[in-house]
């Protein structure tokens, strides 16, 4: 059920992002999903990759500040209101979403969203109890 995300601190400098993707590509790591949050002077790059160990080791060795965070991959019906149903459910259950972004591939005919919750366990329990599918990390990395 756990999905591990790699977060990287980046200064807002041209070419910095390309350096990260370059190092990952050299070490044969495949990026499955990516989101970039940025402010006027720094950014946080969030990645789901198929090999967390290698990605994190390679980037740390290159001097990046890297963190591994638990996120949740949730199946979302690919139709109008699909995401809304899930967000409404979370809101009603009092679960805060820190941030979210879309996964590139679909799971069958469903879209996949990556969520970062304030309280991960609580969120997973709530989703499960309401029939929402949470995708296991090992399955996700291979999608």
């Amino acid at each position, binding site marked *: 059920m756990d999905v591990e*995300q790699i*977060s990287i601190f980046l*200064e807002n400098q041209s070419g910095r992002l390309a350096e990260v993707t370059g190092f990952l590509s050299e070490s044969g790591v495949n990026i499955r999903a990516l989101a970039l949050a940025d*402010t006027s*002077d*720094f950014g946080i790059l969030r990645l789901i990759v198929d090999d967390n160990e290698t990605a994190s080791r390679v980037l740390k060795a290159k*001097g*990046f*500040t890297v963190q591994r*965070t638990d996120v949740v991959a949730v199946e979302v019906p690919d139709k109008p209101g699909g995401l809304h149903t899930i967000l409404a459910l979370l809101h009603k259950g009092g679960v805060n979403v820190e941030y979210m972004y879309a996964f590139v591939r679909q799971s069958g005919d469903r879209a996949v969203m990556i969520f970062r919750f304030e309280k991960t366990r609580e969120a997973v329990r709530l989703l499960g109890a309401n029939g929402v599918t949470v995708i296991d990390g090992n399955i996700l990395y291979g999608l």
Partner: protein
Amino acid sequence: MIYDIDYETLPKEAMEAIQLRRLRSTLERAYATVPFYRKQFDAAGVKPLDIQSLKDIKLLPFTTKQDLRDNYPFGMFAVPMDNVVRIHASSGTTGQPTVVGYTARDIDTWSTLMARSLMAGGATRGDIIHNAYGYGLFTGGLGVHYGAEKLGASVIPVSGGNTKRQIIIMRDFGPTILTATPSYALHLTEVAAEMGTDFRELRFKYGIFGAEPWSEKMRDEIQSKLDITAVDIYGLSEVIGPGVAVECHEAQSGLHIFEDHFIPEIIDPETGAVLPPGHTGELVFTSITKEAFPIIRYRTRDITALHPEPCICGRTLVRMDKVSGRTDDMLIIRGVNVFPSQIESVLMDVEGIAPHYQLVVDREGNLDTLTVMVEIGEALFSDEVRRLQHLEQGISQNIKEYLGVTARVKLVEPKVIARSQGKAVRVIDNRER
């Protein structure tokens, strides 16, 4: 242990008697042999014989860094070059370098003072000293080297730089004492970690760090990362080099000044008036045993205070506080006096902050702006933007609160701030002068 038990534990009266005798002889020699001092004394209407007590030292004119520059290179030497056996010079990063000379006896004096300093910091003749101060014109490397040999310890003259090789030497030779600048000591731990070596597993017991100001917080960090006892050593080439004053490892509270060789004073940097013990001001030194390069009432521009209270280590030598800044490091930001060391204290209060920071001062329109660049390490990094912004704002608020100056805090990637092999570059001032 105390290296020179007789001199380092002298009662006050005996010390003062020695100081007066040595001072008067220094003044007579300087007046007779250095045209600069003769001119200065004459202009101030004072003769060496007018100095009847230690208090009379205030009648003498000051010597400044500019005076030394004006007499570049050898104008301040009090002996013929035949008798000079060594020359050192300051880096000259802030202007023309200042050049100093030593007779054979001066080198012996300096070696003794460094032996005293190393022992005060915990070294004994059984120790292996890893000396990572730069060798060369800079006094740090050779100062420690000669002191270590005088003490009878084994010295590894590794000098600065080539850090990876230093780590291998540390692993293989098992040195027990580290001498370096404090910022280089921390740099060593980073490189060691990259190479898979934990400093705490090396054999180091004590470290003697100096040549740049460092805070108590930085001491805590060094002591925990290296698992050693760390003391501060103070000196400047104009006075003799390192070994003018040192902390004892027993108290780690203030640096004992070797008063049998140097007379310290604290003055008001504005008026030049001598301040009483305990008051903070600019540190001034007069050398009283040096032959080649006597220095009289030299304004160090270092800010500190003197404390004559006895110390638990048994030394009776007066103690100076860790230097809290330099009169010329002081930044004036929109009329507020700011010392880099103050910013450092604020930063080190934040759990997990790396001790690597840089201050950038700019002028936008007519307004000074201060940007504090702080490296973000793993301990502080969050994958959530608002936490990092909260961190920036928190530091900025603390700076405002403690220093009364508005600063923009900018998180930067680790190792963006240039690591110096010697002295850390803490301030970049882009304002036009």
